[in-house]
């Protein structure tokens, strides 16, 4: 048996009313990549928070051994001291400080409190080199893309002489190329003897790099699979996660596509700060009744910008172009006018833009259509409770009550609250921006089912997604965007991953040559 670097024994953690972890045991051997998978709310993040000291010793039951010694961390600094570094899904970098300043934040290279800039900068250059990031140590974080920021986070972990690196959904907001790079890096670290724990919903990635996989479900360890001995298929992992076979990843849909109900013509949008930069150029799109239209493209292709500019000019300046509903021109120059005209936009960033986290589920669901549950400006609370209760049941939102705070729901359930909000606004055209980002297989399936049901009811749906299988599996027709332009359009029945990728990539290759 190879040496065990980390062992967590019989961890139990309870929150008021819920047992988040029930007697979980988990161990990682020296120099392996250990994937931790499970549905949202299965307890992955809680387990990692227990490990890293976010939940201090005493607030949970059980024991943690790191390199053979029992650990009782009271906070993150203590766990980092022994070489245990966690990189959270939400990056913790300070935007207006440079890479070097961020790397040694809290760990400054200093003599008597005076920072040694020469050492900081040269050490930063060295660390950046190790993670394969070719940027000046003086670059401000705010000027870098998410992919590069993720690499800076990893370099920061290296600066702390990490022995066990924990990555919570590191590729959730990265495109394919950046994800690839990151996984490559993990394999390199492995060769240098650094172990890592990888939490991910992307099973293809897990399969690619993991040496072993531990599956959590409902706060308990279900099994640990060893990928070195036999090949583990994605279906095998999914079965462990959901406790049943998932025959179809995408639910089938009875197609009933009607006439064009929404159209955008000659849509041009400029960047809100750099006013001469165009983010959408001569975009023309149509949506038919009962149709799911996919908007594919790389990150930065301008999909979110386009969607938000259509949704009441919520993004961009100097917007020109016209929008038509049922052939008639409509005014969508402000968000409330867009909503009144039957357009809804469910954001890709549910925490920052989608939800009022400190408020109840109920208040979040009704926020975009308070008129419906009020008369003469006075809210009819019994009616509000009734309708929000209906949405909770219809969309299967798991919450202790509709009065629970949105803050305390898992990602998938938060997403369902965002969807409920827009369904309650009763739109005809629904723009869904990455609706399944960072949520688990089971919840994804539920979201797809909801999309199908809405299409069945005759709504037009625009689906923005970075996951090609999702675009191909759910949509009827696909637009491909690149640099703010529509560069391709095809029926899903005639599309393939390769074909879409070709549209996405061609121009870039031409430019690089």
């Amino acid at each position: 048996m190879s040496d065990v670097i980390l062992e967590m024994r019989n961890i139990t953690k309870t929150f008021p009313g819920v047992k988040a972890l029930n007697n979980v045991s988990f161990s990682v051997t020296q120099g392996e990549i250990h994937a931790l998978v499970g549905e949202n709310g299965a307890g992955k993040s809680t387990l990692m928070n227990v490990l890293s000291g976010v939940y201090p010793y005493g607030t949970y039951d059980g024991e943690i051994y790191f390199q053979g010694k029992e650990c009782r961390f009271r906070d993150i600094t203590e766990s980092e001291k022994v070489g245990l570094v966690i990189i959270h899904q939400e990056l913790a970098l300070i935007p207006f400080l440079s890479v070097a300043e961020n790397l040694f934040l809290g760990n400054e290279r200093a003599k008597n409190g005076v920072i040694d800039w020469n050492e900081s900068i040269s050490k930063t250059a060295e660390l950046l080199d190790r993670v394969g990031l070719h940027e000046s140590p003086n670059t401000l974080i705010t000027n870098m893309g998410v992919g590069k920021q993720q690499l800076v986070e990893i370099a920061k972990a290296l600066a702390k002489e990490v022995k066990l690196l924990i990555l919570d959904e590191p590729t959730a907001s990265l495109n394919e190329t950046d994800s690839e790079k990151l996984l490559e890096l993990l394999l390199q670290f492995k060769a240098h003897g650094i172990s890592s724990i990888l939490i991910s919903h992307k099973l293809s990635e897990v399969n690619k790099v993991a040496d072993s996989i531990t599956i959590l479900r409902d706060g308990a360890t279900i099994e640990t699979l060893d990928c070195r001995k036999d090949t583990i298929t994605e279906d095998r992992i999914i079965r462990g996660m959901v406790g049943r076979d998932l025959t179809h990843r995408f639910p089938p849909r009875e197609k009933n596509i009607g006439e064009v109900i929404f159209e955008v013509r000659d849509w041009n949008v400029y960047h809100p700060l750099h006013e001469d930069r165009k983010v959408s150029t001569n975009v023309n799109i149509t949506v038919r009744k009962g149709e799911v239209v996919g908007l594919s493209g790389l990150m930065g292709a301008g999909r979110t910008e386009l969607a938000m500019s259509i949704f009441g000019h919520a993004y961009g300046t100097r917007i020109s172009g016209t929008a038509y509903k049922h052939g008639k021109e409509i005014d969508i120059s402000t968000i409330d006018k867009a909503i009144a005209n039957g357009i809804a936009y469910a954001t890709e960033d549910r925490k920052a833009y989608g939800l009022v986290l400190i408020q109840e589920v109920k208040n979040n669901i009704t926020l975009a259509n308070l008129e419906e549950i009020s008369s003469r400006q006075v809210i009819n609370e019994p009616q509000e409770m009734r309708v929000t209760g209906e949405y909770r049941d219809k969309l299967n939102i798991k919450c202790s009550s509709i009065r629970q705070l949105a803050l305390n729901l898992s990602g998938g359930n938060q997403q369902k609250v965002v969807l409920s909000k827009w369904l309650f606004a009763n739109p005809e055209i629904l723009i869904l921006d990455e609706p399944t980002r960072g949520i688990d297989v089971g919840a994804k399936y539920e979201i797809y089912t909801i999309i199908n049901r809405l299409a069945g009811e005759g709504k037009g749906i625009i689906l923005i997604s970075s996951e090609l299988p999702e675009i191909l599996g759910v949509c009827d027709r696909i637009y491909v965007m690149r640099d703010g332009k529509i560069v391709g359009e095809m029926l899903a029945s005639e599309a393939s991953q390769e074909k879409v990728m070709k549209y996405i990539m061609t121009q870039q290759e031409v430019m690089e040559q």
Partner: protein
Amino acid sequence: MKTLTALFKNNIRDYGMLIALIAVMVFFQVQTKGVLFRPVNITNLVLQNSYVVTMALGMLLIIVSGWIDLSVGSVVAVVGALAGVLMVRYDINWVVVVAISLLVGAAIGAFQGYWVAYLKIPSFIVTLAGFLMFRGLTIALLQGESVGPFPRGFQNISSGFIPDIFNGKGFHITTILIGMILSFILIWLDIRTRKNQQKYGFEVTPFYFFVIKNIGITAAVMGLCYLMASYKGLPNVLVLLFALIAAYAFMTSQTVIGRRIYAMGGNVKAAMLSGVNTTRLLFYTFVNMGVLAAVAGLIVAARLNSATPNAGDGMELDVIAACFIGGASPTGGVGKVIGAVVGAFLIGVLNNGMSIMGVGIDWQKVVKGIVLLLAVLFDVYNKNKNA
């Protein structure tokens, strides 16, 4: 018993401050050998604090929106000064003056709200500028002197009492009657809420607790009315205050506007993307504050029966402290009207009790500062424990 502990834990913020208020009242009642609860003192206490409570209602909305208003003390002064000058120097009818004053308050709120909401200048800076400008304008308007006295009708806003239609000979029967009606309304509302909650399967408080709570509230209302009745009855200001508190409590908890203000304070981007016109809403929040500051300015002027250059000096601090003591969050989205009112009265009782005991103004400020810190510490401690 377990449910009761849980109930208390979940609502510790609401009950905690109320218990603190009662404890402070009992403490001063003992320390002042019964002076605090004398009818005349209770009446004075209400009159002295009416302007802080009035402005706390507007300030709460601004703090819930995620901003602050430092200028309200100066607005009190400038509105009082304007009213005084119009009534005394220009001899304009006091009713007209009240109307003009409220409009001026709205205009001041609109001015500051425009800078904050539309020009996106942080309110701390805008209202700090207002704090200086309106104090300066006050001194200019009054030419450095006090202006007064005012017509009887105007004075009555602050120093008048409601008439007794039953002529109880030294005991104000109308006051008792109003107290009874108010108690019935409160009990009826509570029963209705409880029924609704039961209907939707929410956990409700144990029945005995519900009964005790209502008896407590009724006792407090009737006790207050009894004390008032044995002096001169309900002051006009208190009636105005009751009406304002009821209106704002209703507005924040039951209306579309209230819901949107909390959403805006909780996450301005999410609110905006849900179709809430956050810019306009924020603007009107400041207009509202301006009007309430004008109301307070009129009450202060009427009470002193003169407009003075230093009226309302430092009042913004009492108002802001009342909101934070009452549980509002400096980051926005959290805070209740009742909390702010309890906070305002807590400060009021401290002021009044310490004055009776002969504690100097210096140490009064020290004590108020400590209370503010303790209240916020209590909040932070509870938040961390629940996280």
